[in-house]
């Protein structure tokens, strides 16, 4: 029977090599060339920023050879691609971004204490009293206008930006390499010019990554194992340029981290080992970790996707399976990171499916963002607000959490990231623009001055080519959004005027 099965498996092969057409090969070459041009631009821009005298690597000759080979191999169908001109020899325009550096006008120092109530004996060992310095952005949001934002194309030489963290003196980015999926860390003073501080471990391929600061700079990543499973790996160091692997047995084969955050009690991570086992991790400084099980079953049939840390606890947001087998949003709270309570609120449910991708906390309370999906009606962004992390309401802004105003074509959106900026919030995601053959995915930005009332930036006015906005982060005096554009990461930057 097994041999028959394998023969049947061969028989249901849906595609055959000989069925590939010349047009398809030409299309792939065209897409390859677009990526190569972006990569070339990224390399050139990076060298211009950091190695002004470095020679530019030229590799245009291959293009003619490949095109000729494609034509010989596949016939005249590939000629259409040749007519488009091939390689991009046009030097890019100089960076048009003018960054106005302003002094930080407000800095708030928050002194946090250990949780007042210890729910488990392990809490004391993972959450000793310590002091946290939190810098809150001082600026307020302007009226929605694309004019406030400028784009830095190909700011990072990889499209796989996983997390960006604002530090006291700039930003840190964690990425996976476009070549071999190794973990890389980048630093920037201004969000415009980025410098790689190197590959963390040359033999470790990573998928998701998170950054945290707790005295040390900490990187947590899911590592791809050769057998198809994952585990988690941690690097830590006094600064982004001095990260070394953390030797810990808190992470084992099969672990997959789903969210990481730093709060007053320390760094917490939530994840799973297999589809039904939730695992929690906690660390004071990123160098020593403890592993916990979800003994209360707070995460049963659920998955947290983001955690927001405050000076005295954590709020996690994600998704759960509802009574009908669909998905509802879900929120959990924890004082110490090891013991969690799931909140039950009608605001998390409703017709169809909904989930929370990201949660942020700031002067305006908590905001969670995600999407809702109703069979036959497409996907639209979803936003929830809470003044205290415990009581939540769904924000209903018809026509705002989509990609286009009503009546202007197919409109949908997923909101993937949110950050607090002073009393307001900035969210980013992806939506569809246009109809029919002109339909495309586009990065979308939403703004709120209080978390309750939201407006969408007119996407068509943004000078931003990234289709997928991955992360948004507010620094001391500026906000940046990281987006995936072909084979590089674009940064969308807003520096408030003073």
């Amino acid at each position, binding site marked *: *029977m*097994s041999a*028959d*099965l*394998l023969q*049947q*498996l*061969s028989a*249901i*092969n*849906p*595609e*055959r*090599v000989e069925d*590939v057409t010349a047009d*398809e*090969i030409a*299309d*792939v*070459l065209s*897409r*390859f060339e677009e*990526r*190569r041009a972006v990569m070339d631009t990224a390399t050139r821009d990076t060298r211009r920023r950091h190695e002004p005298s470095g020679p530019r*690597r*030229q*590799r245009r*000759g*291959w293009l003619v*050879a*490949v095109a*000729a*080979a*494609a034509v010989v191999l596949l016939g005249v169908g590939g000629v259409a691609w040749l007519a488009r001109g091939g390689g991009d020899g046009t030097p890019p325009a100089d960076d048009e971004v003018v960054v106005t550096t302003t002094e930080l006008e407000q800095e708030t120092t928050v002194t946090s204490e250990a949780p007042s109530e210890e729910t488990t004996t392990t809490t004391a060992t993972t959450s000793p009293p310590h002091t946290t310095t939190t810098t809150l952005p001082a600026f307020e949001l302007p009226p929605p206008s694309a004019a406030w934002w400028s784009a830095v194309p190909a700011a990072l030489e990889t499209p*796989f930006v996983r997390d960006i963290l604002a530090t006291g003196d700039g930003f840190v980015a964690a990425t*996976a390499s*476009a*070549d071999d*999926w190794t973990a890389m860390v980048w630093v920037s003073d201004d969000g415009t010019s980025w410098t790689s501080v190197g590959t963390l471990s040359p033999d470790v391929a990573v*998928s998701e990554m998170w950054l945290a600061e707790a005295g040390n700079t900490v990187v947590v990543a899911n590592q*791809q194992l*050769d*057998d*198809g499973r994952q585990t988690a790996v941690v690097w830590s160091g006094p600064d982004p340029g001095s990260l070394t692997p953390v030797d810990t047995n808190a992470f084992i084969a099969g672990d997959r981290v789903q969210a990481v955050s730093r709060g007053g009690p320390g760094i917490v991570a939530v994840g799973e080992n297999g*589809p*039904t086992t939730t695992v929690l991790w906690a660390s004071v400084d990123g160098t020593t970790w403890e592993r916990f099980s979800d003994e209360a079953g707070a995460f049963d*049939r659920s*998955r947290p996707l983001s955690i927001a840390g405050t000076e005295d606890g954590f709020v996690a947001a994600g*998704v*759960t*399976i509802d009574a009908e087998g669909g*998905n509802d949003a879900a929120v959990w709270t924890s004082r110490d990171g090891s013991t969690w309570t799931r909140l039950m609120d009608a605001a998390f449910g409703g017709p169809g499916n909904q*989930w929370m991708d990201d949660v942020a906390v700031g002067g305006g309370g908590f905001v969670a963002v995600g*999407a809702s*999906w109703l069979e036959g009606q497409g*996907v639209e962004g979803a936003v929830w607000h809470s003044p205290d992390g415990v009581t939540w309401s769904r924000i209903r802004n018809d026509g705002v959490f989509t990609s286009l105003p009503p009546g202007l074509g197919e409109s949908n959106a*997923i909101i993937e990231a949110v950050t607090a900026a002073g009393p307001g919030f900035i969210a980013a995601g*992806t939506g569809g623009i246009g109809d029919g053959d002109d339909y495309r995915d586009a990065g979308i930005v939403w703004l709120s001055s209080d978390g309750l009332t939201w407006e969408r930036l007119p996407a068509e006015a943004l000078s931003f080519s990234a289709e*997928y906005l991955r992360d948004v982060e507010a620094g001391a005096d500026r906000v940046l959004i990281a987006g995936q554009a072909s*084979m590089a990461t674009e940064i969308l930057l807003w520096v408030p005027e003073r």
Partner: protein
Amino acid sequence: MASLTSDRRFSDLYEQHGPQILTYFKRRTDSETAKDCAADTFLVAWRRIDDVPADALPWLYGVARRVLANHRRSGGRMGRLVSRLAGFRPDADPDPETIVLRRADEAALVDAVNRLRPDDRELLLLARWEELPHAQIGDVLGCSAHAVDQRVHRATRRLAREFAVAVPRARSTTTPQPESRGEL
């Protein structure tokens, strides 16, 4: 500085293996995504042309596996939607999600393949769809040909078990067609 030799080598690489790599992706995802992933795979080859071994196809398939995994993890909007919605149903794995089979037993076989562990699934598909010899599969997956022999044997047994479970379910949800094939 890139040399004419490396340019020629890349040209030869694409000429010889471009259709195979595109087909690899077309078997596992939609046509547009397949083209994007094929372009990404050859971009890696272009950047690392000096690292590409003489027997390049397994190396390219290895890159292709990671390109597709990354695309499914962080790629298009609908891909994320599908993976997210599927993420809470431990029995469901949408790969290869674009395969649409209407006949119950074929659907059951696809279901059984999808329920395999990712490495088992890839192992069998590389053997039966890409028709790679076990030694080359070992190059793709980073193990010996002997290890591939053993893993194919075990994966096939798992496939048979999953198929036995999947057939009744598929037949209860799919209207059998007169020309349905396959034996129980």
